[in-house]
């Protein structure tokens, strides 16, 4: 089982970012993806998370081809992939409390009834205290907000997790903590993880195998 992109081409206007890229994230593996700023790593991440419709190409999740993108993808497929972005402040609704940010995926998929009961299991590992959960984004640091974003990404227990420069904005301690949380989740659930970073030292430490841009005939472990 795997999250697979087939022959993905993406153009922004006349600018071609991805040209017939094949890419696979197998389950039970952490794949690192390294490359310079602006090479198309994040675009590939958004395509794999079904958040961006490519100019051509397809994505399959666990063997099922996705019939659409964004809200046109069926919920059962869409929720199997979660993503954590680089800048937590741009990835949350500034009006919501941290608690509601983390539980939003549960409410959105009809699992809101026992949401509060599941909260401690989500926030404990990332180190968020009850007092922090009552705050809004402007009242917490980048590191604390990114912890909430990771808890949100894991709320629906995705089979695949994409971490797009998840720790680039963070200090060394928060980085080490969040990576440990992702590793623990990956090992416990057998999920597939795609770790995108421009820090080769980090990927050496984190990933089972690291691919470096440009992607050509991707070989996997």
């Amino acid at each position, binding site marked *: 089982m795997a999250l697979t992109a087939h022959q993905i081409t993406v153009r922004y206007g006349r600018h071609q970012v991805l040209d017939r890229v094949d890419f696979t994230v197998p389950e039970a593996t952490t794949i690192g993806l390294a490359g*310079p*700023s602006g090479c198309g790593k994040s675009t590939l991440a958004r395509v794999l998370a079904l958040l961006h419709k490519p100019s051509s190409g397809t994505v399959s999740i666990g063997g099922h081809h996705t019939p659409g993108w964004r809200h046109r993808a069926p919920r059962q497929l869409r929720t199997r992939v979660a993503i954590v972005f680089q800048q937590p402040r741009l990835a949350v609704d500034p009006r919501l409390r941290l608690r509601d940010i983390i539980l939003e995926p549960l409410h959105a998929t009809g699992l809101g009834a026992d949401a509060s009961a599941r909260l401690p299991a989500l926030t404990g590992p990332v180190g968020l205290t009850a007092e922090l959960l009552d705050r809004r984004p402007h009242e917490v*640091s980048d590191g604390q907000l990114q912890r909430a974003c990771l808890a949100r990404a894991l709320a629906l227990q995705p089979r695949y997790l994409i971490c797009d420069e998840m720790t680039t*904005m963070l200090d*060394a*301690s928060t980085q*080490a*903590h969040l990576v440990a949380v992702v590793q623990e989740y990956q090992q416990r659930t057998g999920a597939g993880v795609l770790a995108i970073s421009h820090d080769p030292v980090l990927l050496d430490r984190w990933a089972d195998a690291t691919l470096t841009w440009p992607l050509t005939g991707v070989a996997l472990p």
Partner: protein
Amino acid sequence: MSHSFRVLRVDQLSVRFRLPDATVAAVTDVTFSLPAGECLALVGESGCGKSVLASALLGLLPGNAEIRGGALLDEVDLLSCGEKVLARSIRGRRVGLVPQSPAAHLTPVRTVRAQLEETTHVLGTARPDRRAAARRYADRAHLDASHLNRYPHQLSGGLAQRAATALALAGEPWLLLADEPTTGLDRRLVDATMDELARLRDNGHGILLITHDLAAARRVADRVAVMYASRIVEIAPTAQLFDSPRHPYTAALLDALPDRRFRPLPGFPPELSRLPDGCAFAPRCSRTDPDCALLPKLAPVGDGDVACHHPLGG
């Protein structure tokens, strides 16, 4: 450039923000000096007060800030000289700011040349000389003249950083204040940006580098000051700080690096509105004992200064 007598002296600087229901201690009793030709890095977790310190030095704090202590730049008292002096003779002329996000710092609808010429104009260059001045500062920031006619969105992250640095150099300041200049850049660009700062340092500029990136600090800094919960807890020559840290917090922060033990610190830093009376690191420290209920003073250990009752290796 002869900057040999130039120095920034910060003495017991404290900044407090009074809020309706709390007082935030953002900077407490910070003391250091930075001569021209040296690079001092200020490192620490987000929210430890690094950026507030930088804003205090430039007189850019909001109105509810209370400042105590001293900050002398050459012979000018930055804290009491007033907005007029800051605007006319300090900002841009003695202190240049290398910004956090160059893409957001540059005006998106104007070319780099237009912005550089405008800056040199405001700083007093006569019109016929502006074009040459723009080229000179671009050159000094290693920005090739062919990029001057470009708009910010046409520049890569590294080139935008150089354009922003050229703007910072336009008033011939000797001190450069670089506040998280590498946020969001990839490792290659981080290294390149640090090497640019090293070159400027070697040309006689003093550089205060504020960053959470320890690897970046190590690449360029002569000395490193570690800030925790509004105070400097250790300040030492770079090699000593990285090879034999004395403060347990410094050691723990270094241990979190992916090329070291990759082990996070337990817990969170304390809220700046609720700092304990004693050592603020004690709740997360493995060497805590009853002495730590008393605030440790910064005292010499080895070639540096450490604020700890039980420093490592000493």
